[in-house]
């Protein structure tokens, strides 16, 4: 993470603000996740997908290397401080989703910030979630149609939430937020 230390203080704090503010807005997702798990586990993908939002906003707004991972990490640490019992869950999700978003952006050499690039990240995140959740839930034993819905929603969730994140990012740009933080990259 040596390169992350080259991010300016300003960028770091903006990432933190994005992480905390989206965290507050998705508190709802936290509250619904327990009942969803209990009653309708196969639609969990839609709830889980919300985890992509901070990274999408950070990348859409700042368009720089490292910001997705750093935003997720900071959001995870802050959330852990307020609900320490979930520290493992927060940090795990942050590293997983942030790492994937960062990786996809890095593979396109941080040159592509069009919508399609974000949706590729979303699908990759969904695919990795399918593998992880598949094992955790022992999905092979579920009824075939249930597995299909479950997997489809695990892909659809991140895609839908990526769409939301991109819309927030363009809303912020229109409102002139963080213009000089973006600096020369404008």
């Amino acid at each position, binding site marked *: 993470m040596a390169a992350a230390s080259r991010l300016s*203080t300003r960028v770091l704090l903006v990432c933190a603000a994005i992480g905390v503010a989206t965290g507050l807005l998705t508190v709802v997702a936290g509250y619904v996740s327990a009942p969803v798990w209990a009653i309708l586990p196969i639609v969990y993908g839609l709830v889980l997908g919300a985890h992509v939002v901070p990274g999408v906003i950070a990348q859409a707004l700042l368009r720089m290397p490292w910001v997705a991972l750093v935003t997720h990490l900071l959001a995870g640490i802050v959330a852990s401080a307020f609900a320490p019992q979930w520290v493992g869950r927060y940090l795990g999700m942050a590293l997983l989703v942030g790492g994937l978003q960062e990786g996809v952006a890095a593979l396109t050499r941080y040159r592509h910030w069009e919508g399609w690039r974000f949706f590729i990240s979303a699908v990759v995140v969904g695919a990795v979630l399918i593998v992880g959740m598949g094992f955790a839930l022992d999905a092979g034993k579920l009824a075939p149609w249930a597995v299909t819905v479950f997997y489809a929603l695990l892909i659809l969730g991140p895609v839908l939430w990526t769409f939301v994140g991109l819309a927030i990012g363009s809303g912020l740009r*229109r*409102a002139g937020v963080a*213009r*000089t933080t973006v*600096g020369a990259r404008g």
Partner: protein
Amino acid sequence: MTPLASGAPDGPGAPAPLARVRNLAVRHVGARTASPAGATLEIRPGEVVLLLGPSGSGKSTLALTLNGLIPHAVPAEVTGTVEIAGLDARTTPVSVLSTHVGMVFQDPDAQLVTGTVLDDVAFGPENLRLPVDEVLARSENALRRVGLWERRAENPDRLSGGGRQRLAIACALAMGSPLLVLDEPTANLDPAGIEDVYVALHDLVRHPDGTPRDHAILLVEHNLDAAVMLTDRVVVLDAEGRTIADGPVDEVLRGRAEELHAMGVWLPVSTLAALRLRRAGWVFDRLPLTPDELRAAVTAVPGPASAPRVVTAPVTAGEPVVEVRGLTLRRGRREVLHDVDLTVRAGEFVAVVGANGAGKTSLVQAIAGVVPVPRGTVRVGGADVARTDARSLSRRIGFVFQNPEHQFIAHTVFDEIAHGLRRQKLPDAEVHARATEVLRRFGLEDSAEQHPFLLSGGQKRRLSVGTALVAGAPVLVLDEPTFGQDRARAEELLRLLRELQEAGTTIIVVTHDMHLVTEYATRTVVLAEGRVRADAATADVFADEALLRAAGLRLPPLRQALRGVSHAALRGAIRLADLPGGAA
């Protein structure tokens, strides 16, 4: 006041300047012109320099160049020279400059990093990799100097606004910098907090016997009534940001007051009062700068024999439009208002004042139906607020929040205004006509298609007032509309409110600025601990200093100055407009 022989060229033996700025011009990214555009000033050890200039002249920008935040952290094009202790501030890293220049900003909350008072002060020295002993020694010393050592283990959130700003000063001191730069350090504070900060600053630069200590201060401040008592030298920027005056307080503030006033530079209220009196024929050898000086000056000479002050009869107010009866309000588990009664009549301009936590916000929010109230306790325009739905309530009363941005819901200025009309299901043509009319009235027609967030601070405020009025509400409530703003912008807003009042709107404002209260409000309601302590004509409320102090308030400067003055034309005056010498 000990004006030092500064501003003079370096003579032999004169201490080397801590900061030397020559022809500084800064152009922000995206800005067309530079501001400041040619600022020149010097700061020597032990000096307190006050930097004045109209809004937008680049005072904050100049302050940020002194420790290299511009251009290192905030991108901008910088020309001219900025030398700090002989180092070029444009090329020296911020971390090196930070040991020479300490910064204190406007918002105390934006300067807190860690969880306790002590950790926060230690944060800077730790970044400098000082050994732990040295970090602790510096932190203790800094905290003792601002009187916070005893509270070092507390979470800074528990300090008052003034306390947090003193903490910010301690943080700057702990960097070991001989020069302290403060940019409007009291703009976010209530009267007690402002006093608190200035007492601390005074201790910092003066020994108890009044001789200067070794710290130098550059102060950017709109609240000159508090600042002049501390100042040695004044530097004035013009609207473009060129230095047009640099000299001892006497020479600049007393000598060129008329000129500065005409430029839009804010002056101490006592000086403004004296300028006005001078026009009425009073003679001042030395223009007064503080309430004490003004009182001494007007009691020393008999003054021209002008007619006794005509006490204008209070505007005869109309029907009651807001009636609060026996309002007891709970928030969370606490009862924050106890059995409050209040009547506001049509056409009044009422100020609600009181210390932090007195319940001002709760009261006005209850009146406007922002928070739920018990049935039958609040009536607006005859309707019970508890039983009225939001849409019809917005036609009776408009509420303006402290931060205009919180209230914006549309993507253009026009839609923002039109929203309230569209909600009433008016035909498009009428929406367009009425919205355009409001935009014109508030001077926003050129920005109709802009995003509301891209307006300037003053424009945002006007827009938020416009959105509250467009639905046709005859009553307008504003919660601390002048918080964090400079005096000039605050004046602009209050003048706008007065125009609205003269056109028949009833105005209720919550504010901490006693000067503005006395200038504009016809009636003042003092709250203390959830109860109404006083409710009377503004002049009567401000005649009772004991009452004000008990409610955690302070006398406004003019009232302080004229306390006990018996001259017929001045007795009982509380507003500048009450003084003889007005233009009309």
